């Protein structure tokens, strides 16, 4: 992870909005973008679609999206839709 990472805390109640903000950050980010999922207990289909979009956007840039504090239930959801390989994870 680079030293000048952008850090975005994802609100568990407003995950889609948080991911939208992350997408906007990708355009200007110099280094990694860290999304802190510590307060997210569960994600819904809209959030998952937003994550797919985010991953797609990040693929086209040199920015690495790092997910921090992802609980194992959400990690399994990401695994099932084959998104884990498109993000980095931080405990």
């Amino acid at each position, binding site marked *: 992870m680079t030293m000048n990472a952008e850090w975005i805390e994802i609100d568990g109640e407003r995950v889609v909005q948080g991911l939208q903000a992350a997408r906007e950050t990708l355009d200007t980010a110099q280094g990694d973008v860290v999304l802190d999922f510590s307060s997210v207990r569960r994600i819904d289909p809209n959030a*998952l679609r937003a994550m797919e979009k985010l991953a797609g956007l990040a693929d086209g840039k040199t920015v690495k999206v790092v997910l921090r504090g992802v609980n194992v239930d959400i990690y399994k959801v*990401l695994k*099932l839709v084959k998104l884990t390989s498109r993000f980095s994870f931080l405990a």
Partner: protein
Amino acid sequence: MAETVASLSEERIAYLEGLVSQARIAAAVFTQYTQEDVDRIVKPMVLAGLEQAQYLARLAIEETRLGVVEDKALKNMVATEFVYNYIKDKRTVGAIREFPERGVVEVAEPIGVIFSLTPITNPTSTVLFKCIMAIKTRNAVIFSPHPSAGHCCYEAVRIMYEAAVKHGAPEGVFTCLESQTLQDNAYLMRHKDVGLIDATGGPGMVKAAYSSGKPALGVGPGNTPVYLEKTADLNMAVVDIITSKTFDNGTICASEQTVVIDDEIYDSVLQKFSELGAHICNEKETELLGRTVIDPKTGYMQPMAVGQKATDIARMVGLSVKPKTKLLIAPIQGVGPEHPLSVEKLFPVLAVYRAKSVNEALTVCVDVNHAGGIGHTAVIFSRNDEIIQKFGEVMNAGRIIVNSPGSIGALGGVYNDMVPTFSFGCGTGGGNSTTDNVNVYNYLNIKRVARRTQAHMWFRVPNQIYFNMNAVENVRHFPSRSTIIITNPAMEQIGHVDTVRRHIPPETLVHVSVIPDAEPEVKVVMQGVEALNFYKADQIIALGGGSVIDAAKIMKLKYESPEADLEELAAPFLDLRKRVIQYPTEKVAQARLIAISTTSGTGSEVTPFAVLTDKEHGRKVTLADYSLSPDVAIVDPQFVMSMPKGLTADTGIDCLTHALEAGVSIFASPYTDSNAMQAIRMVFKFLPIAYEHPQDEEARTMMHNAACIAAIAFSNAAVGVNHALAHAFGARFGVAHGRANALMLPHVIAFNAGVPTKFMPSPNQRGYIAHKKYAMVADLLGLGGQTIDEKVKNLVAATEQLLDRLAIPRSIADLGISKEEFERAMPDLVKIAFDDPSWRSNPRMPLLSELGELFWSAYRGRSLPTVAKAPQPQTAEEWSCV
């Protein structure tokens, strides 16, 4: 199939991919839901289905033109209310079942995306059922209804979806192809993200599902035979059959197709059918009916007849029937292409057959069952339990319905306590992996979390053991009318037989049977059994070493259970508790076995083993069972005071080997350890004294006891690789068992104390502890050493020193066996040692190559350095390793 997929347009593929993507996301999100979340969603779905039951029934009838609206509504209600009643308290998320006594917990894992095909005959009820099941199990479903039932199914899916999402289900959890083609189905069946195909419908669709390479629940056609047996309640039977066969105009595939009726009741049954609204066809009408409703080319029913009323079918055929006729009954004389009406008919036409005997009736039912209905459903009406049982055995049907309507009975939960379903598993006969009434558990991957369990172990010893000098006097406490003393010539010559006889009560008839001093042969054993029978013995006294006592054990076995097959009883086994062969428990005679040992080594007086030589076939037969253990053991040192020095040494080391091997065995327990450790201590202290001072009574007593105590240990913990090597080597080169053990012992200790190349599965132990056990022995003997490694080396050295003191040859080479001769024997030695069961309780699994290395180590002899003795405190920590 590949061609049909290839013909899909890009636009269509994008559409189908969209459906799968939606379902895949929903299924992934669904994995986060708890049981409570799921149950909160299911209930309102069920209520929505109940509320719309009639609406959906009307839609189905309007669209498909099949069946009866009232019955379709009823089916919708069963598919919701009855299914809910069954599943509402079922756990389908997380831990779903626990078996604490087995340490097993079953944990549910959703399948993910299910591709579900639904039929024209039961369109909406099947959709309702599958939606409820899917939500209960956290799965997403893509529905593909029958093309002629697309709209009503779409509506059913919509109603379920709205209720589900409103109460928290993930968006996209259900999708439905409103119009579909075979190409769509083929594409979705093979899609990588589809986890399961649930195909309820016609044979073509089911076959396609199975051919897709995906796991599939395929429910195919039936052809339900019914046996109406003469003891049946005929009024009930006739009403049940009419109810079932006319239900939704016969569209349920479990409905009755051919009723086989006993001759005695045939006419009255037909009369009752007629009275209740059935039309009994005459021969000409039957022929006409068969020609019209069954396709003569394919032999299958004509689609135009499916789900139609009896009067409409009569009109199609040109039969004249009463206006309210419910059912057309066609008598047939057989099953097969010559009798077209013997196949499945999903409309109210029922074939009947007159059977002259139970056997004929059952045979015809088997024919019907095999004429397109294997694995599906069969029905019997009878009060005769034997016939019901027989029917259940000969029918190949997932559901065998007794004294109830076939169609509604098979659905479960109405006429019986079967699992409610709208999807009948037909087993392998129907090309299906299950015979279940498909329900929630078929929509789950069930994982088993199995905790390590500790197997029950045992500690068994003979009922009574008398020990110390003159213990033989206790023989007088055992009343006997007729006693046989089994012994060898030496015991008679020395006068030991007379010693024993003196203590037998005077009223006892005593016969002495002298056998050769060698491993018992079959012939010798059978002569002994003859003597036991002749004297009607109620007591056997075995006086001698291991061979005599072993012979007596087998004589007792054959005397009490003449049918016992020694060869069968010697069958190999891995675990005594799970062995295939059981020793006889029924006895035609009974005799007490008192074993008096005259050597201090084998411990046969307390062991459950006996070895027999089968000279005829040139082999040894080893028997092992606790029923072989003597009833009474007498460990009286007066019988060993005159043992020669060499025998004292060899048998003493045999005893030490028993104790050391039991100590490190994978079956060792605190119970066996206490005996093994005590025996080791006694051997190290008293064997040199008994060897050097044969008349030392204390040493002889302690060694005699040590042999018995070590035998108690290995009777319960078994021996190890040392014995496997010694058996092979001793037999090949004619070396006494104890001496052969001695040659191997230091090398085996070193081998077991090393890090195993291959660990032996040992569920009763936590980690590898053999080296620690040896270290514990070293501590017990006060051998010193700072580390486990040093202690093990000191134990090896102490063993070497003991062997030296006993003047036992220290290598196989010392026996005068040339290297070339040994090399020639090596392949056989390794093979025989590997076949020997003894090593299976050894802590370290020996590889074939390692067995060879051990033999060569023993050939070369001592090679381990002696570690200087150093004082070592025996700490609690060191002892805690066991």
